[in-house]
């Protein structure tokens, strides 16, 4: 089952999707954090491959990246640890173009697949530059998710929705990753526009700083990606168990969200009636 199939199945089972993030190699035993996320009800986990010059990241993910690199984290090392990890939800990579194109997009995708990852997202490879990588990802059965922004034109949103795989990553604000920020009409509109363009799950990221905000944003899309709020706690010394408890609190907020009047009636295109609600563990790639 691909990342996209997995997420669609869960969404169609009536669940708001929750995707927590961890910077690979941020501390010894960091894969325990991945396990804790999954046990707490994550639907997928985003694993950051730290880069020295993360253009789209705010102070928290920058600090997490610096710490991981200083601790000796490398793409190969992170992949080796992930290969030894067996969890019941898909994992996907988040990293920057310079790491992806070290050898080639094809080599990078092959390495991800060999370690059991199901997709990737590369924030500094927009539509204009993503062609070769999209081909390489597809050849390896990986879903390459694209980002949509409040500044994206309707024509671009259509193309992003059409070419993204796995899900569409909608950023809630013009800015870098980080906590804070309120829901604006533009965010609700972005979620609504994307939902009208694709049946792929639409996840909001950036500024998903607490359970209430996660639930609010999930009302305008299919779910959320939570990164800085978790990495801030981890950098401050919070361990995997407590991080898991925090993710569980977001899970509960999403599960008990009031149905959203605006969102609920939206049609879902191409929904397949035979989609199974229950999914078992992923076979290893």
């Amino acid at each position, binding site marked *: 089952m691909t990342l996209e199939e997995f997420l669609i199945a869960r969404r169609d089972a009536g669940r708001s999707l929750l995707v927590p993030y961890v910077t690979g190699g941020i501390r010894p035993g960091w894969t325990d954090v991945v396990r804790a996320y999954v046990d707490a009800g994550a639907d997928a986990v985003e694993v950051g491959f730290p*880069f*020295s*010059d*993360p*253009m*789209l*990241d*705010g102070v928290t993910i*920058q600090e997490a990246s*610096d710490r991981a*690199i200083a601790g000796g984290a*490398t*793409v*190969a090392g992170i992949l080796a640890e992930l290969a030894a990890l067996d969890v019941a939800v898909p994992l996907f990579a988040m990293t*920057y*173009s*310079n*790491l992806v*194109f*070290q050898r080639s997009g094809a080599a990078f995708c092959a390495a991800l697949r060999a370690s059991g990852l199901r997709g990737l997202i590369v*924030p*500094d*490879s*927009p*539509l*204009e*530059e993503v062609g070769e990588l999209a081909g390489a990802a597809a050849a390896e059965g990986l879903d390459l998710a*694209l*980002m*949509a*922004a*409040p*500044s*994206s*034109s309707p024509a*671009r949103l259509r193309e*992003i929705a059409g070419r993204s795989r796995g899900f569409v990553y909608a*950023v809630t604000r*013009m*800015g*870098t990753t980080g906590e804070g920020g309120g829901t604006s009409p533009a965010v609700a509109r972005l979620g609504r526009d994307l939902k009208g363009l694709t049946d792929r799950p639409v996840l909001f990221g950036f500024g998903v700083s607490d359970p209430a905000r996660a639930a609010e944003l999930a009302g305008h899309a299919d779910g959320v990606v939570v990164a800085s709020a978790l990495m801030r706690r981890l950098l401050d010394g919070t361990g995997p168990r407590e991080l898991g408890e925090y993710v569980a609190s977001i899970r509960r907020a999403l599960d008990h969200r009031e149905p959203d009047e605006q969102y609920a009636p939206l049609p879902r295109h191409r929904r397949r009636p035979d989609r199974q609600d229950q999914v078992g563990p992923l076979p290893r790639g």
Partner: protein
Amino acid sequence: MSEHALMSDPGTTGRFGDYGGRYVPESLIPACHEIEAAFRDAWADPGFRDRLTTTLTVYAGRPTPLTPARRLSRELGITLLLKREDLAHTGSHKINNVVGQALLAERMGRRRLLAETGAGQHGVATATAAALLGLEATVFMGERDIERQELNVRRMNVLGAEVVPVTTGSRTLKDACNEAMRHWVASVDDSYYCVGSVMGPHPYPWMVREFQRVIGEEARVQCGAELPAGVPDYVVACVGGGSNAAGTFAGFVGTTARLVGVEAEGGAAATSGRAGVLHGYRSLVLQDEHGQVREAHSIAAGLDYPGIGPEHAHLRDGGRARYATVTDDEVVRALVRLARTEGILAALESSHALAWVIRAAETGAVAPGSTVMLTLSGRGDKDIAAIKELP
């Protein structure tokens, strides 16, 4: 590769061979499109071109002279001509680009200029152009560079610009670029990112080269008047990101002149970098075996940059330009030698180009009697404190 295609319009994809492009987050793509469209429109508008030329003439002091370095030429056994960008307003070639981009920002209705700066020359130029046009300026500068270039920080402050210290990473130019881009994402509606070199996402490498082309075009005409052959044997410029070199080469790429870019030994992306993606473009980048970008090291803050403009990478691959390195020691000796033979105090950055010419002439790599046109990109007042011991 035809010479005709070199240093021309890279089209909508912004590609120079394998290099360039637009590797920025989706949030910034509309801004890049808007700037490209505005630049294409302005560049085709005689009114804009007139205003730029007039501003460069009556305000920035163009054309800058081509000075024969008579005593140094005699010592080296060559004919050395210096294109005097140190005599442009604010003391370096950076003003050419900044006046162009500030006029464009004004035309686009932007109220504020954002800029990164290394040595502070681009920051000073941006603060200057902002003051001239009544715009605000916010300049991002690495903490280490702020320490090294205190004078330029004070100049920016006096000119009314806000200087934001950057405390991340190596605290130099590359980190200032990251921070400027992050800030740009968050303020793209009212701010214009005034990139200081031939780097960044398309259209910047092309646009900045076009705004710097005036160096090469003036020098080409001046060489025609000064040299019996009309064209020099060598055209030499220093390269950090490579804007003065790009502007210079643009005037000579269609001639027989050999083009030489000179990098700092500790910041030599063209010489020892690998293909990579940094700050929105694909080019040659200094990086470790895992793909983490390395810190560059140079006595010249303006060359402390681990990338190189994508068009330089393309010129290198095709062999139309060659790139060499010099050491900090050679640079300081060259600076002092020019000061004592010609009474010209060049910037440490520009002294890289000079150091290569001196070495090449003394080793015979540049044959006796050769003619050399060197772009002296800026003046050295800012660097006096860095020259601790006179050779």
